[in-house]
């Protein structure tokens, strides 16, 4: 039994729902481009980053939440008016952030296991 809760969501509405149901919790969110039927994302950086992020999840704080969010297809993401860019202010995928704090790792920062570990263990 993991010491954190993992939630999988697709799209902005599901993401907002997941957040609102977990008020007061320490929430980490990882945003990735959608995966195809073979499980491969259209976003090459996301493909590289995911195993790195997953590899550090044992360091997540006790009682925290990890939301894995697929943002949508490439066309949706490229539209600068999409909800993630407009409301959450995401600048790129993959993004790993700690909800409600300025702690964020963007794109190639997510390739670095020590940075991911730093985010999960920092208070």
């Amino acid at each position: 039994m993991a010491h954190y809760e993992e939630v999988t969501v697709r799209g902005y509405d599901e993401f907002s729902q997941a957040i609102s149901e977990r008020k007061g919790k320490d929430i980490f969110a990882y945003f990735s481009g959608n995966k195809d039927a073979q499980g491969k994302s259209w976003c090459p950086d996301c493909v590289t980053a995911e195993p790195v992020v997953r590899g550090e999840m044992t360091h997540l704080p006790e009682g925290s939440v990890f939301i894995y969010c697929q943002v949508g297809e490439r066309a949706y993401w490229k539209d600068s008016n999409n909800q993630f860019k407009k409301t959450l202010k995401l600048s790129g995928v993959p993004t790993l952030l700690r909800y409600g704090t300025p702690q964020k790792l963007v794109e190639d920062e997510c390739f670095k296991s020590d940075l991911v570990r730093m985010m999960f263990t920092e208070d």
Partner: protein
Amino acid sequence: MAALCRCRHRWKRNNCLHVLTRNLTGKYDYDLVVIGGGSGGLACSKEAAQLGQKVAVLDYVEPTAKGTKWGLGGTCVNVGCIPKKLMHQAALLGTAVKDAQKYGWQISGPICHDWATMADAVQNHVRSLNWGHRVQLQDKKVKYLNLRGSLLDEHTVRGLTKAGKETLLTAKNIVIATGGRPKYPTNIPGAMEHGMTSDDIFWMKTSPGKTLVVGASYVALECAGFLTGIGLDATVMVRSIALRGFDQQMAGLVTDYMEAYGTKFVKECVPKRVDKLSSGALQVTWTDTHTGSEHKDTYDSVLWAVGRAPETKALGLDKLGVQLKKESGKIIVGADESTSVPNIFAFGDIGEGRPELTPTAVKAGKLLARRLAGHGKELMNYDNVATTVFTPLEYGCVGLSEEEAEERHGKDGIEVYHAFYKPLEFSVAERDASQCYLKVVCERGGDQKILGLHFTGPNAGEVTQGFALGLQCGATYCHLLQTVGIHPTCAEELTKVNITKRSGLNATVSGC
């Protein structure tokens, strides 16, 4: 017998084992340990790491008397330049909105400012900078320790957690960049219990309300300035002169503008005591040094801006023989930032005689790191450093004040070109530009080398920066005359200045 054994065991554990470790490996834990994670410390440690040195940086923030604390980045990021400039901007926007109506914007009613919204946005930005620094250090392989650092010996730094847990680090070189903290007055009852400092104001979640700012430093004036600008009742209590050390004519223009725009000034007065009333408000009693009479008034907040003290007390410097300047308490440093102990260096606000500025600390830190890593011998050049005071009417300057120039060259050895000008944008806004002024202090003979340049007006920092390059290149008044201005700007007036103080002629510039 038992006692003897106990003693030996203790000595072995604390000292001997440690010495053995060092000797066995033949080297230290780190090439460089930096104490202080502010503008200087971070720049130095990152540069050193980039040059292949093994570096650790210790940063620790002792909470204020009010319990305020903050993250990595030092004074500038957390309780200085950054939040100050953002709040100054908030105030300027308030003025701009008032001007906007004259430019045609239809604004329905009186506008008011919400402190909490501003503070939240500013504090969030600062926190993102704290995080950014954490990521940078990690990325550049600098070991970061959130511990209170002190020196045990010339090569050993001790780090302490809040709970008192100890970590020891040995280093070939040690750099002290611990900066300073605001001073509280020592002889005023109630000062510490009821008042706050610049360390607190930027982290307040609720409005400071009617505020008394004690002091006339740039910290005092900038804070009183933005408080007035966002609509609060702000008073500055000045003991003698404003902006000591700055050109006094310019200082006068800055304070005149502030007074005209609503900041109250209580001059030649010193506070005597601060009491908290049953309503929660603060009652300040002060003495008018001119008449000797006593006065009282009530405020919601009292902000002490009466100087900054260097963070040297808890470093253990006296034990090591690191010399401090008695009057200031700062560390005496050489041109290469060295101290009286060969492998210990100090720079930034902590260094005696150094400007208390971020850019000089950053540059000095990088150059020091390069020298320590054996990459060059370049020393920091502290001459002609441009600065700006971000009061409601900003004041930018580079080089000598008129007083300093007179002292060095004599009144007859300098020529001061000056002008009162009016920013174009003030015209439509019907704003008073009486304090918008500039002067260029030059040598009188020869090419008339520029010794100092002073400017009050909007965006003074942006205006002054480029001219700092000119001074660095040895610009003369002739060069200035050869420079064509950009029109229409305020900065162009600097390229057109031609009336001398000596002539006594009217220095007001007419339009084009």
